[in-house]
């Protein structure tokens, strides 16, 4: 029996290593994705170009401007002279935000103890827009506080000093989120898509007919298909973690043993999903379609990788509850970034295990030992 299993695994590796497209999907996509996500796609506020329209040019306005520009967050694009120029600068894409001081800024501030500053932020990208707005606002508030203290040597009468600590990712690096998220997505892609295609390919080329007519048990055929992809997925996951650690300095706070165990569990779940797809689809093309549109997209969008689940409308939240990636996302983030131990993620782990046994049971039942 083990000889048979070994034979079919060996054969499967021949298929994988002889097909360059398969190899490209297996190893090319993960590397390209992580480099793209890591380097190109960034939510961080850094060296944002801003323009300034200072209509008063007095003590307070210039000091605020100095303070804003002294940080690494903002770079000056230009000083403007009129409101029309603001639009122009936005449309040409030169700036992401503009800071506007009205005339007689210091005078108003001194007389009435309050004055207006206008912050215009480019909200074509809402998240970044809001973030830039908040940062600018913070700079202005800070200036006021500091000025008050130095000018009067007393604190303002009532003040709640909020201090935000960005725990687990103090520098708000987006790559912290992408590396665990990518492992989730890529394992899904490799395991589900590749196994379902590998099985349907045998149906299409007719080789499944010969396999079925052989005395091999269905579970051996399926195991022989699953084990190679389990190994390759594991290599893939290690590759992503290593790239994340050494290139992007994403830490692994929890234990590696737990991480490995959870990755294997998740691989098993998505492999079972792949087998399940292959029991529905008769052709490679259909298997590919199901993997991409029915599984890959929801995983990407609904697992909490890109959008927070709490903000979704109720029906989508329910869908996200049955996406296995949702649970793995929580698990892997907890282990890698928070250093969680098994007891913290026991619930998610058990749910994943449950999904695995359910899918495996259904697939073995659905797997046909005959041609029809």
């Amino acid at each position, binding site marked *: 029996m083990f*000889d*048979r299993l*070994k*034979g*079919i695994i*060996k*054969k499967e590796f*021949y*298929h994988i290593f*002889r*097909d360059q497209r398969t190899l490209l999907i297996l190893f090319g996509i993960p590397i390209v994705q992580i480099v793209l996500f890591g380097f190109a796609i960034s939510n961080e506020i850094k060296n944002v170009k801003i323009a300034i329209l200072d209509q008063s040019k007095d003590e307070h306005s210039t000091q605020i401007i100095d303070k804003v520009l002294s940080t690494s967050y903002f770079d000056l694009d230009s000083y403007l002279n009129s409101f029309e120029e603001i639009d122009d600068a936005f449309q040409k894409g030169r700036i992401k935000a503009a800071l506007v001081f009205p005339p007689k800024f210091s005078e108003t501030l001194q007389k009435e103890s309050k004055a207006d500053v206008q912050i215009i932020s480019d909200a074509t990208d809402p998240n970044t827009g809001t973030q830039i707005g908040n940062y600018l606002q913070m700079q202005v508030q800070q200036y006021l506080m500091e000025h008050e203290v130095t000018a009067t040597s007393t604190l303002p009468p009532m003040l709640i000093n909020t201090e935000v600590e960005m725990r687990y990712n103090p520098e708000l690096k987006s790559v912290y989120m992408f590396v665990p998220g990518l492992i989730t997505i890529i394992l899904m892609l490799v395991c589900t898509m590749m196994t379902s295609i590998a099985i349907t390919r045998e149906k299409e*080329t*007719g*080789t499944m*007919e*010969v*396999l*079925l*007519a*052989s*005395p*091999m048990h269905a579970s051996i055929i399926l195991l022989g298909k699953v084990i190679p992809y389990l190994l390759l997925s594991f290599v893939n996951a290690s590759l992503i973690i290593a790239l994340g650690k050494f290139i992007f300095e994403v830490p692994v706070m929890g234990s590696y043993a737990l991480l490995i165990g959870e990755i294997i569990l998740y691989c098993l779940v998505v492999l079972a999903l792949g087998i399940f797809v292959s029991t529905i689809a008769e052709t490679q093309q259909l298997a590919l379609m199901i993997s991409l549109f029915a599984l890959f997209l929801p995983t990407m969008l609904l697992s909490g990788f890109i959008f927070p689940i709490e903000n979704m409308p109720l029906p989508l939240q329910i869908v996200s509850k049955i996406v296995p990636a949702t649970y793995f996302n929580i698990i892997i983030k907890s282990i890698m970034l928070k250093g969680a131990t098994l007891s913290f993620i026991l619930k998610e782990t058990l749910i994943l295990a449950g999904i695995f046994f359910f899918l495996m049971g259904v697939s073995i039942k659905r797997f046909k*030992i*005959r*041609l*029809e």
Partner: protein
Amino acid sequence: MAVIKVNNLSKNYGEVEALKGIAFEVEQNEIFGLIGPDGAGKSTLIRILNSLILADKGEVSVMGKDPNKQYQYIRNNIGYMPGRFSLYEDLSVKENLEFFATIFGTTIKKSYNLIKDIYQQIEPFNDRKAGALSGGMKQKLALCAALIHYPKVLFLDEPTTGVDPVSRKEFWQIIKGLHQHNITIVVSTPYMDEADLCDRVALMNEGEILRIDTPKNVANSFDKPLYALEAKEGNYKLIKTLRAYPFLESVFPFGEKLHYTDQRDLDVTQALIEHLEAEGFNDINISKIASNTEDVFIRLMNNQKQ
């Protein structure tokens, strides 16, 4: 004792009746041919026998086992070569054979005695990918794979379709040669001339068996005198004229000539010549000939339609 017994076997695909209550038996060590055109139900029948699909109705027994329940035993003891080339095209000849040897729990070495005559012909291409082999070579490789575990019964579904004439001949020699190894062979083919190479044949059409007999008896079973004719004006014009002839029973092209039967039982050679000369044909050549399987098949098929 019969190795395969089939009784009242029916199979439908939706509206289409693929097999309409057929019955036959195959004896130990026989080469049993299923002869018939595409759509006759040959592949369906073979797949039911080797347990790959289930019959709707009727009794089937292969080596005394029911393909529905005891399929594990059957799958352990049969060799099956599907109609379509079903080996791995991206694996080499040797890798394919090794793979099939392992899944049947054996090795090339152990089975070498059985497959050596065939394997020696493809061994020079051991390292070539199966996808790059010629049609004949592919079929030889597939046959090796089907034989690798010393099956008791061998099912060959159209093994010579799409194979060049020389390879076809070689392939049949191989099949004949397997006789000495105590293997019962069920082989399907659309080529009527291959019927003569079987021990017994079943002529199949549209899900029915028209006749089961030895090839010789089948060929001789033609119950009318058969004439082969040709004329200078060509077959097309000749057929048209003969179809208008009141005594015609059947006429169909056969190779370069026409095969003709008449409603009258006596020798009609002279009468035909006179009729055709009157219709303006020249160089008329008519001879009485012995019938072959194809003549019988066409006649049976026409009877079936009526």
